[in-house]
């Protein structure tokens, strides 16, 4: 039996709490007696009465007295710390209503958050994202315009802490059935997607869903992740996380054209993983997303049939040839993909985000010829809602196109899913009707799943009834538009 008597000065706690703490310590196996109390005269007497040596101490001192068999003392002292910590209480505000709402992500995480989603302006997003990481949770940054050095620093912090930074500029993420940013309602399944392209990931997950193949997670790592400055930092973490995830048995790494060194180093990583990884690196010479989706589907299930849906519009309206194709896009990757397909067969393709070999716009949106515009770029969205959530900019643009006295194919993407416009057809149908009435061919790339809240098939039918040709695969929509121009329909 050992007696341990300790005086802690300035460690005040109220007597009720200390009585509870004493009981906890006394209950430790091997503890014969324990007293935690302020060293008042009364308590010093009690201590003496228990047979302990009475130390010199005053009422502002905390007494810790334990009698235990040798081995139990350490356990008892650990219990003292735990019991005293418990007297300090937690963050509970029970019974007094909620406190003020958190003003920063840190306070949200401290209040029980397990993941953070940040969509504040780019200059302010770094602080909120860093809050999440320092408080121990992963974060999705939807915001664009986050400086690249901040992105690098955030991702370095994340990897030091075993956390994941999704974004910045991550349009889409889907984790365990929950969509963040813009995401589609797709079935659960074995395919995990690491995506440095938001609409690309949406297109791929929807096409897989149509083929009966489900998705475990879509981790949007941000458009710059595979560029040399960022070096694939989040892609690495995401690939490892999906590799360890039991629900994921196939991984797709989807990116706009990556830096060659980054791509090579990621390839080294994927070679070490247990889970097979399909690289889907988009680019002028690469496969389109419909082809990739078909390949992934058959890799996962040899019996799966990738048959992207299409809805026929007004046959009379598509009898070409047409002088120009006008691509008015909301999704950057979809715009890119359509542009690549068009550029292979048409001369003089121009864009605000031109691929190699295509030209810059010469007169803004009024640039004549084959034009592919990403209307989701900053230059068009500043102070206006993104075309993914509001069709008015594109409706206005369609009417402006109709003013131009030239034969045209209008090619538009319509993106469905969480956070997208609840009923884009309602806004687009009158414009489609007007366009068809003005002898335009209208081709819609409809990026959505059968389970999306907008009712994809209903949306498609309404637009088709208005005369548009609707395709669930963007590549097919683009190819169809090109065929119209060439007069092949």
């Amino acid at each position, binding site marked *: 039996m050992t007696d341990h008597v300790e005086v802690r*000065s*300035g*460690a*005040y706690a*109220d007597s009720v709490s200390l009585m509870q703490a004493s009981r906890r310590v006394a209950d430790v196996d091997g503890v014969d007696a324990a007293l935690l109390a302020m060293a008042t005269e009364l308590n010093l007497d009690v201590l003496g009465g228990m047979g302990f040596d009475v130390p010199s101490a005053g009422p*502002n001192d905390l007494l810790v007295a334990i009698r235990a068999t040798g081995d139990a003392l350490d356990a008892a002292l650990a219990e003292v710390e735990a019991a005293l910590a418990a*007297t*300090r*209480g937690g*963050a*509970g505000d*029970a019974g*007094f209503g909620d*406190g*003020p709402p*958190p*003003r*920063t*992500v840190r*306070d949200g995480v401290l209040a029980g*958050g*397990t*993941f*953070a*989603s*940040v*969509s*504040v*302006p780019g*200059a*302010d997003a*770094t*602080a*909120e994202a*860093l809050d999440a990481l*320092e408080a121990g*949770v*992963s974060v999705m940054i*939807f915001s664009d315009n986050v400086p690249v050095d901040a992105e*690098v620093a*955030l991702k370095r912090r994340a990897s030091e*802490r*075993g*956390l*994941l930074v999704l974004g910045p500029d991550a349009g889409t993420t889907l*984790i*365990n059935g929950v*969509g*963040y940013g813009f995401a589609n309602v797709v079935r659960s399944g074995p395919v995990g997607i690491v995506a440095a392209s938001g609409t690309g990931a949406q297109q791929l997950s929807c096409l897989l869903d149509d083929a009966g193949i489900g998705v*475990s*997670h879509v981790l949007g790592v941000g458009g710059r992740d595979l560029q040399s400055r960022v070096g694939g930092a989040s892609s690495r973490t995401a690939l*490892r*996380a999906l590799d*360890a*995830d039991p*629900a994921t048995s196939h991984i797709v790494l989807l990116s706009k054209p990556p830096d060659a060194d980054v791509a090579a180093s990621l390839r080294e990583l994927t070679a070490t993983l*247990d889970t097979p990884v399909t690289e889907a690196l988009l680019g002028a010479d690469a496969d389109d997303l419909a082809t990739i989706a078909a390949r992934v589907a058959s890799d996962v299930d040899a019996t799966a049939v990738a048959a992207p849906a299409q809805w026929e519009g007004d046959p009379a309206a598509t009898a070409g040839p047409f002088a120009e194709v006008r691509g008015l896009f909301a999704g950057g990757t979809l715009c890119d993909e359509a542009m690549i397909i068009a550029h292979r067969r048409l001369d003089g393709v121009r864009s605000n985000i031109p691929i190699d070999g295509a030209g810059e716009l010469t007169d803004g949106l009024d640039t004549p010829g084959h034009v592919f515009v990403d209307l989701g770029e900053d230059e068009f969205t500043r102070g206006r809602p993104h075309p993914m959530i509001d069709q008015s900019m594109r409706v206005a643009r369609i009417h402006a196109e109709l003013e131009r006295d030239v034969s045209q194919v209008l090619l538009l993407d319509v993106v469905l899913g*969480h*956070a997208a416009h609840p009923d884009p057809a309602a806004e687009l149908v009158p414009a489609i009707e007007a366009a068809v009435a003005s002898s335009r061919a209208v081709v819609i790339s409809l990026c959505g799943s059968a389970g999306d*809240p907008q009712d994809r098939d209903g949306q498609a039918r309404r637009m088709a009834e208005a005369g548009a040709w609707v395709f669930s695969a963007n590549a097919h929509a683009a190819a169809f538009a090109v065929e119209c121009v060439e007069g092949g329909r």
Partner: protein
Amino acid sequence: MESTSEPTALTDLLTSSPRVVTAGVELFEAALRDQAVDVLPVDWRPPMDGLGAEVARVMLDPRTQTANATALERVVTAEPHWVSVGTAHEVLGLETGQFLHAGPPISWDEASGPLRGALIGAMLFEGMADTPDAAIEIAGSGGIELAPCHHHHAVGPMAGVVAPSMPMFVIENATFGNRAYCSLNEGLGRVLRYGAYGPDVLERLEWMRTVLGPALAAAIGRIESLDLRAIITQALQMGDELHNRNRAASALIVREVVPPLLESGIDPADVADVVRFVNGNEHFFLNLGMPAAKATMDPARDIDGSTMIVAMARNGTEFGIQVSGTGDRWFTGPAGVPDGLYLGDFGPDDANPDIGDSTIMETAGVGGFAMACAPAIVRFVGGAAGDALDATRAMYGITLGEHPHYQVPILEFRGTPVGIDVTRVVRTGVLPFVNTGIAGREPGTGQVGAGLVSPPENVFTDAVRALAEHAQHA
């Protein structure tokens, strides 16, 4: 036999049902709610002055997190003890003609009414002048030397004027060995610290110099030292917040000093006067609490990269702050007029702009930050008891941590919010909640009320800009 190298945080992320903290576009928050997700929205607003980039630079400074952890650790492990009483000349080396004052540096010409009044009184007290006019003449012609209390490890309530022969409490931080100093509290009403300098004021100062100071010196000498952290801890649980309410702490001091006073051999009549004086002044403890807070905060100074505020102080003209990572630099802005209750016929027109070093209490995590401990005084600021809770709860959002000893019973004994992070003030726009007394504008008036004061925003934005300039690159 299996790879378990993957961090559990990510496994949890991919397998469990989340509670998502959202900051920014409401559309995404709504989309999550529609998916039956547990959402915790942040009441986000743009940082003051659009300083997002500067805040990011400071937060990404690789030193910041560790520096702040160190600063907070020093603050919460401090053990301020009252160890002795001595004159300012003895303990600070103050010579005739030298005076300390509250707040950031200021000259006689810029000094407000109460500060001038207190300096006049102090010159009369030191025998430098026979009349107020003579004192004004001396001060106006450069005959006195002024320095902030904070530059001498000292603090002073309201005008905070310290003269060489005034007795000072000496506080030692047992953990770090540093000391802090403060004059003795004169009581309420017409007193020097509010700028009053009439004969009654000077008479009381003289009694404090000759009777009170020596008596307290003898008392503390007998018990050697008194643990102020323990007193503060208890007082918070007894309804004090230790800035505008010091009633419990003052009573606890009486309990501690009476026995040694009785044993000290001092004339019983003097002992009775001393006990009556201390007992009759429910703010007596403020002048112990402030140097305790000062002794607590000083070790947290000068930590490169730290964004913790180590001093907030007002001189009646300007409100100033000092930040750990920017050394002795003061960031100042115009002092506001407190909003509160006024004594008798006084009103806002009689009030001087905010004054005093007593904001060291909020800096150290009590005062307004512990308002939830002191619902009894919310009426000072025209509020309800719930406002006291809200005030403290709001302060958690701008502080680095919670005090392990100073607890708020009504918040389930949660620690008080401590360690104001200047970047969080700028990010949230939530200003430190500062309780204060209100001094009369005219020299010689004294206290006219008590209430709340809002610090000027620019002191925080200027500090963040300065931190950003010196931030190391991530």
